[in-house]
């Protein structure tokens, strides 16, 4: 399968194309000669400018109305794919991206490869991912015909602008999504986020079960993050326990972060967590269990009680500033 025409399923947040979208476009430009984007949402002009700047020449726009974007998108994309024959359609491993690739795979009766971390041309698309918490790398290829449906984890590629002009917008006629269109978004709730964004911060401090209780998160994790002008995150364990909101989760099912410094407090280092932070430049771990897997990736590991080490650390940093 040669790779010529690549489509990217574009997404936006706060009226701007997401960084994951721009990363996919950059990679698509490297692999294919024609890069086009599909977008289900509003703020079309801003998104067309952004995807154009990263190499897309065309932006197919689908109006989701009050439907779930990923569900409503599948029927028109399937129709478009039949008309334009893209070799591959790339999706971000995101909430809506996952809905869209899943529904589309059924519409086109095509297999999917998801959670990708690399993509290259090896006489056809070579897809790479990490399994078992990223310790084993696996490369896979599709053996059938296109379009190849692939979802890639955010932060897998650098986003580099091509300096292209705004993509030409082409409105896509509605296609019958069947009962999928019955799912309606009634309300949107935005949870207030303080401090720098997890995905963008230079320093990330995360807490896990080892911090002992929900009320310790603020004085230990959040406070240390603030002292280091960083963002604060969490392991899945304490998100599931309801100590902190899901938006703070770092890991396989949460956010992927690659800060200059990642500080893991009371996190054992389940593979689920390691996948989301292993790419950090420097990792510091504090955990009382000397055998915790987090120490296998830590540049500096302190086997100790977070309730003793962290307050002393916060005091020491305050004394320096």
């Amino acid at each position, binding site marked *: 399968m040669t790779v010529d025409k690549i489509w990217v399923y574009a997404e936006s947040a706060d009226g701007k194309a997401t960084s994951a979208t721009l990363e996919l476009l950059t990679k698509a430009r490297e692999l294919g000669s024609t890069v086009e984007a599909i977008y289900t949402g509003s703020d079309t002009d801003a998104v067309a400018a952004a995807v154009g700047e990263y190499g897309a020449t065309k932006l197919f726009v689908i109006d989701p109305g009050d439907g*779930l974007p990923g569900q409503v998108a599948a029927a028109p994309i399937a129709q478009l794919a039949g008309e334009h024959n893209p070799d591959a359609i790339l999706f971000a491993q995101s*909430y809506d991206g996952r809905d869209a690739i899943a529904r589309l795979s*059924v519409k086109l009766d095509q297999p999917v490869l998801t959670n990708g971390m690399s993509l290259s041309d090896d006489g056809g698309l070579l897809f790479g991912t990490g399994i078992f918490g990223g310790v084993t790398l696996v490369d896979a290829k599709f053996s059938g015909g296109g379009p190849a449906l692939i979802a890639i984890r955010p932060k897998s590629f650098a986003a580099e602008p091509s300096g292209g002009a705004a993509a030409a917008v082409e409105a896509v006629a509605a296609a019958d999504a069947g009962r999928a269109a019955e799912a309606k978004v009634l309300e949107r709730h935005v949870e207030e986020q303080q401090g720098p964004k997890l995905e963008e911060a230079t320093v990330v401090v995360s807490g896990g079960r080892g911090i002992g209780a929900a009320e310790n998160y603020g004085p230990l994790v959040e406070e240390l993050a603030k002292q280091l002008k960083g963002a604060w995150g969490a392991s899945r364990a304490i998100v599931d326990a309801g100590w902190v909101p899901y938006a703070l989760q770092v890991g396989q099912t949460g956010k992927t972060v690659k800060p200059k410094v990642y500080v893991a407090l009371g996190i054992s280092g389940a593979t689920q967590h390691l996948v989301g932070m292993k790419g950090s430049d420097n990792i510091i771990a504090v955990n009382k269990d000397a055998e915790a897997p987090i120490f296998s990736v830590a540049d500096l590991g302190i086997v100790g009680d977070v309730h003793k080490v962290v307050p002393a650390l916060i005091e020491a*940093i305050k004394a320096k500033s």
Partner: protein
Amino acid sequence: MNVVVCVKQIPDPAVPGALAADHTLDRSGKLILDESDSYGVEMALQLVDTAGEGEVTLVSMVPNGEVSGLRTALAMGAAKAILVSDDALAGSDALSTAKVLAKCVERAGGIDLVLTATESTDGYTGTIPAQVGELLGWPSLTFAKHIEIADGKVTIQRQTEAGYDVVEASLPAVVSVTAGVVEPRYPSFKGIMAAKSKPVDAVTAGDLGLDAGQVGWAGARQEIVNVAQAPAREAGEKFEDDGTGAEKVVAFLEQLKVI
């Protein structure tokens, strides 16, 4: 209110995973109920309880006719199970698996709601919920952290990057639940005993009307071409905290010019 919960029986995540010779995940050892699915089972039991009628049916596809994970979910209170185990299904990808699960939902019959996890802990392709929805021709509400059923409609709080959306659809529908949507119960002794005699309908792909070309290796249409160990991170330094732990962290942060 009749609910199907798709459950996966997986190798114990506490044991390091391995690939079999054919590059599929080694599932030859003991398999247990994927913890991610225990939330769906609990949610289903609560919804049926609230409705005051109906039952929970489990659907599971697994090699070797394994039932130990199913028994766990039956012990929690599910009424019965459909178990698909068939050599023809070896090598199945997510789409093939979704086809099997959708056929099982049809086989169960009269189902109002299908619950799934957002992804399995072992394979985590993460597309099955919406694929099953599309195959059934039903809406799929994904990433639910809260569910309510009323007047023939399901309303969820759907996790988003920024917070959550309130999303509604009429039944029947597929809903994927995030971990933590409810607190799964522990099976009682009585439940464990009762589970032993609950009906498990063992079926093959053929029984479900699927032919071998649609599922298994043939259906997957993908191949693993290379498996390698990731370069290990260089082992760092590890210290027992003897009261100087904080100082060591400060020194490291200074060296990195973060403070």
